């Protein structure tokens, strides 16, 4: 027998009293190592002391209170629809929202690109117009058809 045995008995004694056979072995061990006797006595007495600590008194309605509180706390969980319980449906909804957001952003960008393309086409058409000096009398010509009164002088000259 060596110190490992002593450690083993000590660890057993931390949890429960040694049985008769263990006690006999221990006594034999301690007889050969009297220097450990004092340590063992202190160990054993401390175990007895700790074991004498009484259970604390409990309220008589403790169980009833726990049951009521547990049911109350679980009530929101139980009234939640089955498809919404747990983290999976919430994760699925989160992913769906991220997907919709990404799709919307993608669509928005496509629309922006289309609008830019149309603006470019319009600009390129402007570039094909006649030069600006051709339009010198444009306003006068445009107003010609708005003249209501006939220019008699001009007509007579023309005749």
């Amino acid at each position, binding site marked *: 027998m060596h110190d490992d045995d002593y450690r083993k008995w000590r660890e057993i004694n931390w949890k429960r009293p040694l049985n008769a056979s263990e006690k006999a072995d221990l006594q034999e061990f301690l007889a050969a190592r009297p220097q450990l006797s004092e340590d063992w006595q202190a160990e054993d007495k*401390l175990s007895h002391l700790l074991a004498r600590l009484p259970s*604390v008194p*409990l309220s008589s309605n*403790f169980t009833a209170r726990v049951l009521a*509180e547990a049911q109350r706390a679980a009530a929101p*969980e139980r009234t939640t629809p089955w498809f919404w319980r747990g983290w999976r449906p919430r994760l699925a909804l989160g992913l769906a929202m991220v997907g919709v957001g990404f799709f919307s952003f993608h669509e928005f960008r496509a629309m922006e690109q289309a609008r830019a393309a149309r603006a470019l086409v319009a600009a390129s058409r402007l570039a094909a117009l006649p030069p600006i000096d051709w339009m010198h009398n444009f306003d006068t010509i445009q107003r010609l058809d708005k003249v209501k009164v006939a220019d008699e002088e001009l007509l007579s000259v023309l005749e």
Partner: protein
Amino acid sequence: MAAVDDPDAALMLRVKRGDLAAFEALVEKFKQPVVNLLYRMLHDLDEAEDLAQNVFVRVYQSAERYEVSAKFSTWLFTIARRLCLNEIRRRGRHPAESLEAGMDAESAPRQYEDSKVFSPPAHFLQGELEEKIQEALDSLPEKQRLAITLCRQEELSYEEIAKVLDCSVSATKSLIHRGRETLKEKLKPYLQTGAWEPAGPKENQARPK
């Protein structure tokens, strides 16, 4: 991996299926060990009861996700440990002030002895001893105190205590050893005199075989 032959785990599986009677059985079985543990850690009976109630409510709320991966008691005491350490940390952040803290000696309520109450010397001794043991326990670091208190739970092996404490078995035994060394030092006068030691059959009651 614990098998479902753990009767408490079997009860918990019934709770998972919505069996309230099974939950009640578990509460009945474990309420005293859980409250004892929390009281030894917090040294406040009301707090210990409230926290124990929270522990069992957590168990009930977690029933749907419960899988048998360890003994039920290991899982239960792990929940108790976490809530207890949270509470100790919360107390550290918001220490409660005593109602008598601001009173001076004159304004403090006087204490009157109840002369009708007769306590035999043995009761005095036992009460004083309990107080001293609790004081000595309170002086230990949280993990040592928890390890020593869990060590008293007969149903928990060292491996299970290690799981609850989230450390190795050797570290657990080391925590218990160091804690007990401190207790031996602090309780030396009581251990040396042996005045507390019960005579005959009481001792057997104290440490069931």
